[in-house]
């Protein structure tokens, strides 16, 4: 599969602290790729390094198959990016702000402005000053600014930040539409649920290192299996299961329990244990681990190893 971003042993240090530490990242073309990690994990630093906004301490970067920074201008001509929150000249209109950036791009960029504004739903507000825009409108104008490059790759840093639910849904649809057009969208986020809903592939980063990367389904499947249990007496059920070392975790969930099962514990045996303890079982449902649970499991294991 063709790759649009590839890094090898990429490291960025600020003094003694490594903000990104030996990162090997591979982003395939034509997907929505989530770069997932908690705040301070190094997501923005990696994006800034990819885009040449700050210099890497060591390592190699390839963007759209072009080595960086040697072929920087050539690669970035086909990249649209929002780094941190989208910023604009507040005294200029939305359209004028796009003209400013279009002037730094190829000659065709200016002709793409009207379509880009319509695409993000800002056609009617294009001649208003940006200082009158809401955060959601600024996010959309940031996307429009990316689109005037007709990008093969969009790099979006926390694009859902500050958006209301409708705005998040709209952004999700936009991202999926870009992927449907054959573009690649690389987005960073700390919102696990959003990444799971929006992205096909994901890399989980923590403290500057990539912990795992691959397809969202594939990574979520790495999480421990869980079981949702509805019983008449949750406390009795908890007592009955606590003695079984193969039940790794028991959490309350709604009126029932969520069990995290260790290797080799069949669901039928859980049922037997509960029944033998006099607990009436009304529901036993295996649950697929969410990306969030996998992420938390992975990071908590790491913390446990330290």
């Amino acid at each position, binding site marked *: 599969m063709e790759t649009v971003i590839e890094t090898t042993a990429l490291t960025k240090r600020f003094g003694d602290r490594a903000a990104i530490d030996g990162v090997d990242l591979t982003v395939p073309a034509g997907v929505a790729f989530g770069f997932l990690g908690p705040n301070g994990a190094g997501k923005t630093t990696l994006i*800034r390094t990819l*885009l*040449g*906004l*700050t210099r890497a301490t060591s390592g190699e970067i390839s963007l759209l198959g072009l080595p960086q920074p040697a072929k*920087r*201008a*050539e*690669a*970035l*001509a086909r*990249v649209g*990016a929002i*780094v941190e929150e*989208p*910023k*604009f*000249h*507040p*005294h*200029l209109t939305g359209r*004028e*702000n796009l*003209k*400013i*950036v*279009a*002037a*730094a*791009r190829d*000659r065709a960029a200016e002709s793409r402005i009207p379509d880009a504004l319509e695409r993000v739903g800002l056609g009617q507000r294009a001649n208003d000053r940006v200082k009158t825009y809401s955060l959601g409108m600024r996010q959309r104008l940031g996307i429009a*600014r990316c689109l005037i*490059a007709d990008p093969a790759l969009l790099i979006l840093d926390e694009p859902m930040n500050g958006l209301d639910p409708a705005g998040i849904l709209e952004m999700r649809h936009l991202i999926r539409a870009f992927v449907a057009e054959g573009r690649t969208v690389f987005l960073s986020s700390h919102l696990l649920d959003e990444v799971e809903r929006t992205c096909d592939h994901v890399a989980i980063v923590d403290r500057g290192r990539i912990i795992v990367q691959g397809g969202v389904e594939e990574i979520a499947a790495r999480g421990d299996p869980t079981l949702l249990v509805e019983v008449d007496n949750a406390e009795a059920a908890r007592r009955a299961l606590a003695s079984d070392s193969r039940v790794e975790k028991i959490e309350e969930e709604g009126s029932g329990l969520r069990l995290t099962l260790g290797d080799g514990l069949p669901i039928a045996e859980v049922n037997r244990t509960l029944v033998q303890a006099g607990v009436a079982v009304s529901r036993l449902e295996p649950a697929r681990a969410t990306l969030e649970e996998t992420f938390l499991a992975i990071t908590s294991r790491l913390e446990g190893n330290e």
Partner: protein
Amino acid sequence: MRLVRAEALKLVRRRGLMVWSFLLTVGAVLIAEIVLVTLHAVNPAKHGPAGGASNLEHFAFLLAGLGNVAAIIIGATAGTQDVSNGVFRDLVVTGRKRAALFNARVLGALLVFLPLLALGFAVAVGGSFLFAGNLPHPTAADIAKYIEYAVAICGVDIVLAVGLAAFASSRVVVGVLIAWNAIVSHLLIAIGSLGGSRKLIDVAAAEHFAPRHAVGSTIAMSTAAALLVLAGWTVVFLQAGRFWTNRMDA
């Protein structure tokens, strides 16, 4: 050229900046002319005509002095607005060379400022002919000399402001350059023990082109030397600004 036009657009859309720049250039000359015309109309025996060669000299001095402040404000704004508005990184990620972005700031600032200076000068020259009365008209040589002076002092300062703005906020740039032009440089020029080294001061070089009544305070130097000094200051500030724009994290 598209980048330069974009820089100019950013500047001309700043209403406050443009109003002040207009007042400090065209407005200052207009007000001065209105005052002189009114005084002459009220008491022609005490106040001579508002035009003529001598008044053009005063207008040129006024235009250079106040226009210089406008030049610094425009240069400082051009030099800082991308970074202060957080847009610099969005320009960098287009792949355009940072040096090109910096150069566009300089040319964009000049593109906005020079027409104001030219208009102010046109008003001054027009008034000097229109209200000359019995006074001699300025010669073409006079006019050329005053244009040289205004361009030397304002043109150089706008470039210095853009260069310095790569390192500091616009307020700091404006404060430092006005303080340098109005106070510090003149103190240094007044220190006789500094001798010929005072020729290296940009203000001393610019004043080589000053109207006659200000010449007494200047350091004597050839036109070539004055041009060389001004070019040196311009090159140093441009290179420093370009260097830092290339080097800084965006």
